[in-house]
C-alpha cells in the first residue's frame, strides 16, 4: 500500500474533476479523528465502483461518507486513505406514489426527500438526528435510531432493497422495488448500522407511508422517575398507537426546555425544575387524535402527574424535532460528554435507579425512547485524568449492567482517547464470529472502513 502521489493516481483512475485535493478540505473528512489522504466524489454508481476497484488494486482503505454528521459513531478506522463522498449522487431514481415505493441515490438529503414525498402526501419514517444535513445512506449506515420507531419500526422494517459496490468493485443488488419479497438473500439488511464496513451503498429502496392528517402531543411532568415510568408503561400497555414515546430525566427535561427556548418556540410550561417528564406524540385524523388525547389524559391523571400539557400540532412538531436532535445536542452539551445507547428487556424503576449509579457525581441526562432504548449521557466540565478515570469506570459499569440484564450498551460518543479504553461495544462472541465471516465475504481485501464496526470489523 502506498499513498504517495495518491491524488495524482486517483485522478488517473476516476478523472481529475472527481478528486478534491485541497489539503484544508481533508481535515473536514476526518472519521473519528483520522484524516484521509484524498477525497473523491463519484457522480454515478459506475464511478463509485471504479473508485473501489482502484482502492482494491492499490490496497487502499476507503470510507464512504454522506453529510459526515455521524462519523464519530463507532471506533476509529485503523486505516483511512480515501474518503468517498457520496453527496454528488442525490437523485430520486424511482418513486411510484401509487405503490408507495421509492428508490433514492445514496447521497439523497433526507430533508429534500421529505419535501418531494410531502407533495404526494407521503413520508419516510427515518426521522434521525442531524436531519437537516443527513443523507439517506449515511443515516442508514450509522444505525442511529429514528424517533418514530415506536410506531413505524426501525429502518429494517421499511428498507426493501439496495444497490451497492462490494469489496471487489462490482455493483451488486438485493431486494427489489416491491413491498413483499423473498427472492434471494436479504443482503440489504446487513448495510444497516454497518458504518461503511461492507459496501459502498449507491442506492436504497424504501416503502413510503401516507402522511398523517395531523399530529398532537402531550408533555407531562412527574415528581419521581417511578411515577413517570408508571405513565410511560401505561401508555405502552394501553395499545394506543403513539408515534413517539419518550421519558426524560430532570436534567434531560431541563436541557430540552433550554433548547426549545432558544428556538423561540412554545415551551411546555411543565418542563423543568426537578421534574421528570414524559413526552407522547400521536397522529391520525382529528377524530383519532382527539380520542388518543382523551385516553392519555385519563392515564396521566391515574399516574399522578404533577402537571401536564396537551401540545397542538405546531408545538408537538417542535418538541418532536428537538428530541429527534437529542443525540446531536447531548454530545456537545459539556466539554466532556460520554453518551451511551443502552437497550434493556424492560425499563423498570430498578433499571433506571441502577443506571443512575455509574459515574457517581458526574452530571447525567437520561432519555428512554420507544420500547427499550435508553440514551444516557454523562457530562463533565473538566477534561482531566480524574474525570477520564471516572468516565472509564462508569463505562465499565454500564457495559456490565447491560450484559447482566441481557441487554446491550453502545458507547455512541466520547472523547476519542476515552473511547479506546473501555471500547465502544461488547459484542457476543457468537455474533462476532459470524459477522467476521460476512465482512470477509463482502470485503475480502478489507478495504472498507477497516476497524470501524463491532469487534474491529
Amino acid at each position, binding site marked *: 500500500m502506498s499513498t504517495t502521489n495518491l491524488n495524482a493516481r486517483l485522478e488517473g483512475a476516476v478523472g481529475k474533476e472527481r478528486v478534491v485535493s485541497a489539503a484544508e478540505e481533508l481535515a473536514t473528512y476526518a472519521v473519528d479523528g483520522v484524516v484521509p489522504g484524498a477525497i473523491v466524489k463519484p457522480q454515478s454508481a459506475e464511478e463509485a465502483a471504479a473508485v473501489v476497484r482502484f482502492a482494491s488494486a492499490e490496497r487502499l482503505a476507503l470510507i464512504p461518507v454522506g453529510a459526515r454528521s455521524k462519523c464519530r459513531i463507532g471506533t476509529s478506522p485503523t486505516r483511512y486513505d480515501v474518503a468517498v463522498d457520496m453527496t454528488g449522487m442525490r437523485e430520486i431514481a424511482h418513486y411510484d406514489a401509487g405503490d408507495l415505493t421509492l428508490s433514492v441515490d445514496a447521497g439523497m438529503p433526507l430533508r429534500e426527500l421529505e419535501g418531494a414525498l410531502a407533495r404526494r402526501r407521503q413520508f419516510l419514517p427515518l426521522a434521525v438526528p442531524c436531519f437537516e444535513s443527513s443523507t439517506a445512506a449515511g443515516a442508514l449506515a450509522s444505525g442511529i435510531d429514528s424517533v418514530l420507531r415506536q410506531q413505524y419500526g426501525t429502518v429494517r422494517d421499511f428498507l426493501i432493497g439496495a444497490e451497492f459496490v462490494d469489496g471487489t468493485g462490482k455493483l*451488486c443488488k438485493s431486494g427489489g422495488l416491491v413491498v413483499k419479497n423473498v427472492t434471494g438473500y436479504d443482503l440489504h439488511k446487513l448495510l444497516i448500522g454497518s458504518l461503511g464496513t461492507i459496501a459502498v451503498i449507491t442506492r436504497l429502496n424504501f416503502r413510503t407511508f*401516507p402522511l398523517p392528517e395531523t399530529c398532537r402531543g402531550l408533555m407531562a411532568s412527574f415528581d419521581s422517575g417511578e411515577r413517570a415510568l408508571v405513565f410511560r408503561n401505561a401508555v405502552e400497555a394501553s395499545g394506543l398507537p403513539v408515534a413517539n414515546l419518550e421519558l426524560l430525566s430532570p436534567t434531560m427535561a431541563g436541557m430540552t426546555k433550554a433548547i426549545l427556548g432558544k428556538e423561540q418556540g412554545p415551551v411546555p410550561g411543565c418542563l423543568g425544575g426537578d421534574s421528570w417528564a414524559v413526552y407522547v406524540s400521536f397522529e391520525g385524523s382529528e377524530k383519532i387524535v382527539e380520542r388518543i388525547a382523551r385516553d392519555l389524559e385519563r392515564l396521566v391523571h391515574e399516574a399522578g402527574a404533577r402537571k401536564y400539557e396537551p401540545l397542538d400540532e405546531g408545538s408537538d412538531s417542535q418538541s418532536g424535532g428537538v428530541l429527534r436532535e437529542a443525540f446531536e445536542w447531548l454530545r456537545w452539551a459539556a466539554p466532556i460528554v460520554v453518551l451511551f445507547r443502552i437497550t434493556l428487556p424492560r425499563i423498570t424503576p430498578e433499571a433506571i435507579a441502577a443506571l443512575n449509579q455509574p459515574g457517581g457525581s458526574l452530571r447525567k441526562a437520561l432519555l428512554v425512547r420507544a420500547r427499550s432504548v435508553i440514551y444516557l449521557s454523562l457530562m463533565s466540565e473538566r477534561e482531566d485524568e480524574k474525570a477520564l478515570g471516572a468516565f472509564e469506570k462508569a463505562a465499565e459499569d454500564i457495559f456490565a449492567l447491560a450484559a447482566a440484564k441481557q441487554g446491550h450498551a453502545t458507547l455512541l460518543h466520547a472523547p476519542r482517547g476515552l473511547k479506546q479504553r473501555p471500547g465502544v461495544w461488547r459484542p457476543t462472541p457468537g455474533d462476532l464470529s459470524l459477522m467476521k465471516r460476512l465482512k470477509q465475504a463482502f470485503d475480502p481485501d478489507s478495504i472498507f472502513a477497516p476497524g470501524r464496526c463491532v469487534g474491529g470489523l
Partner: protein
Amino acid sequence: MMRSMSREMLSLLGPENVLSAKEDLLLYELDGSVERARPELVVFPRTTEEVSRVVKVAAKYETPIVGRGAGTGLSGGALARGGGVMIVFARMNKILEIDLASQRAVVQPGVVNADITTAVEHAGLYFAPDPSSQKSCTIGGNVAENAGGPHTLAYGVTSNHIAALELVLPDGEITRIGSKHGDAPGYDLCGLFVGSEGTLALITEITVKLSRKPEAVKTLLGTFDTIEDASQAVVEITARGITPAACEMLDGWTLRVVEDYIQAGFPRDSAAVLLLEVEGLREAVEEQEAAIVEVCMRCRARGVRGARDDHERDLLWKGRKNAFGALGRLAPSNYVLDGVIPRSKLPQALANILRIGTKYGFHIGNIFHAGDGNLHPIVLYDPRDSQQFKKAIAAAEEIIRYCVELGGVLTGEHGVGMEKNELMPLLFSDADFDLMRRVHDAFNPDSSLNPGKIFPLSKGCGEIRTRKRESAGTRG
C-alpha cells in the same frame, strides 16, 4: 456408507427417531410443491445438541443435510435435492419461554405457527405472521422461508417478528445470533438468516416478537362484477394510503369452488371479491371502513358488507385460508404460483395471467394477497399427464417472467427453493450471484446444507455431486 452412517444415527438417536426403510422415506420425498426428491435417511432429533451431533455425523460421511418442518412449503425448500439426511424438527416442538411483559416467546422450530398465538392470546397478544397453512406449518419453516400471510400487509413478514435465533452451522457448531430484545450491535444477522431457506444454517431455537391484539377489528367483503373493477379498487385503496391489515382477492371461478366446499358466504354470481380487514382504534376502524366502502363503490362494487360477528368473520377467513384445499377437489394436483408486482400494475397483470392461461389451455384461478401485490395464480393439472405437467410448468414460468417485466420479483413468500432457482438470473447479475455465493460459502462452504436451492445449478453453490443427482428424483 449410508448403512454405517445409518447405524451411527441409530445409536445416537434411538430407533424410534430414525427412518431408513423405503416405504417410510416416501412420505418425505414430497412437500407442498410440485417437486419430488427422496432423502436417504430421516432423523428426528429432540434437542439442539442432538441436531449438532447429527450434523457432525453427516459431515463425517460427506452427506448433504436438509431441515424440514411440516413440509407445507411450496418451493421445494424442504426436499432432499441432494439426497442425504433429512432432519425433521417435529419432535422439537416445545414453547420454551413466554415473556408476556416483554412480548417475547422462545420456541423450538417444530412449534406450529398457530400454537404460539394459542399460548399467548389470553394476555391479548398474538404472533402476527399468518400463512394460510398456519394450523400445520411450523415456525422453523416460517423462519427459513421468511413466510408471509394475509396480515403481513400491515404487520410485515416473519423477518419483522424475529428477535433472535439459535443456529447449528454445517460443522455442528451451535451459536446464537440477534438479541431477545432487539438491537444487537453490528450487522443484522437475523435479517440475513431469516429467509435463507436452510442454506446457511439449521435453526434450532427462535425468539419471536409478540404483537398486541387491536382494540377493534372489522372484516369487510367487497363484491364486484368484473375482476378489473376489483383490482382497480385495490390500486386506489393503496394509492390513497388506506392501510388495511389485510386485502385479499378471490376471483369468481375460485370463490365458487370455495363455496362448493366451505360455504363461506362469498356471492357465487360475482366476478371477484375483496376480503379486507381493518384493525386498530375503534375510530380508525370506522374511518378506514368508510374510506374503503367509498373507494369500492366508486370502482363499481356491487356492494360492501361487514361481517356481522366473529362467526361470520371466521367463516370468511376459513374460505380464504382453505381455498387451496378446495381447489384440490377439482384436479389431482394444483400448482400455486407466487409472484410479486408493483400494486399499481395489478389490473394489467391479472388480465395477462388470464391470457397466458388460455394460451396453455388452463383455467388459472387467482386467490391472493392483493394489498401487497403478491399474486398466487393457481394452475390445476394432472401430474400423470406428462404433457399437461410440462405445460403447467411453462405457463408458470411465463407468468413469473411477466411479473419481473412489470418491475416485480420471483417470489413474495414461498421462497426460491428448487422451483425458481433457474429463474434467478432474471433478477440477478453474475456480480450479484458472486456475492451471494461468497455469503453462502462463508457459512456453508461445502454446500452440505440444503444443496441445489436458491442458486441456479450452473452458478456454483449447491452443486450436487453426480452420485447425489442420480439418487435424487426429478420434477413430477
